[in-house]
């Protein structure tokens, strides 16, 4: 019976970690053995923890960011009234 509250505590801890900023999340996860993640509903918890504030129908947060080829800056709002914009967030690793 003691295992149930311990498991619940572990789940709560993992969820709290998932809510941390990416760098903090990564620093904690590096110390967590992979098999420990096999006993949690990682994807379900991840979807909730990383749900985010912006929702479909909201005005997209504007940004101006430099192109990787340094050719120009890109401002999201400059496409209003002309083209829809696809954004692919990601990194190399």
């Amino acid at each position, binding site marked *: 019976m003691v295992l149930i509250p311990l498991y619940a505590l572990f789940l709560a801890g993992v969820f709290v970690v998932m809510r941390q900023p990416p760098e903090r999340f990564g620093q904690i996860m590096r110390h967590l053995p992979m098999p420990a993640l096999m006993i949690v509903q990682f994807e379900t918890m991840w979807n909730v923890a990383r749900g985010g504030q*912006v929702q479909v129908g909201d005005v997209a947060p504007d940004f101006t960011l430099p192109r990787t080829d340094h050719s120009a800056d890109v401002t999201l709002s400059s496409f209003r009234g002309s083209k829809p914009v696809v954004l692919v967030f990601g990194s190399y690793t």
Partner: protein
Amino acid sequence: MYEKYGRDAAFFVVYIGEAHPSDAWQLPSNIRDQVVFESPKDMTSRSELADICVVRLGIKLPAVVDRFDDVTERAYTGWPDRLYLIGTDGRVLYKSRPGPFGFAPSELEAALTRALGPAAK
């Protein structure tokens, strides 16, 4: 998708903080594939790694680099990866679930074809 719809929609990769850098939660698969990089320590090194990413992965889409304070990533909760479609009215038409599990290009394409209407055909 970019080649198919690139004339009717704007596409951008938004390069953000590394998902599995060598100084944090590094994955064995990245070691095997020799994709081993530390977290960039400033904007210059972030831009350099973004360049490497675009070149080595052969990314054809235009790419932009998030600022070092991750302001765009935080606004969109884009880490570790995520897809969005923004309509011509500036509103969010599609938001994927967070990656890697929720990274679903087929969902994005369906939303894009709806947004473009007859122009998508």
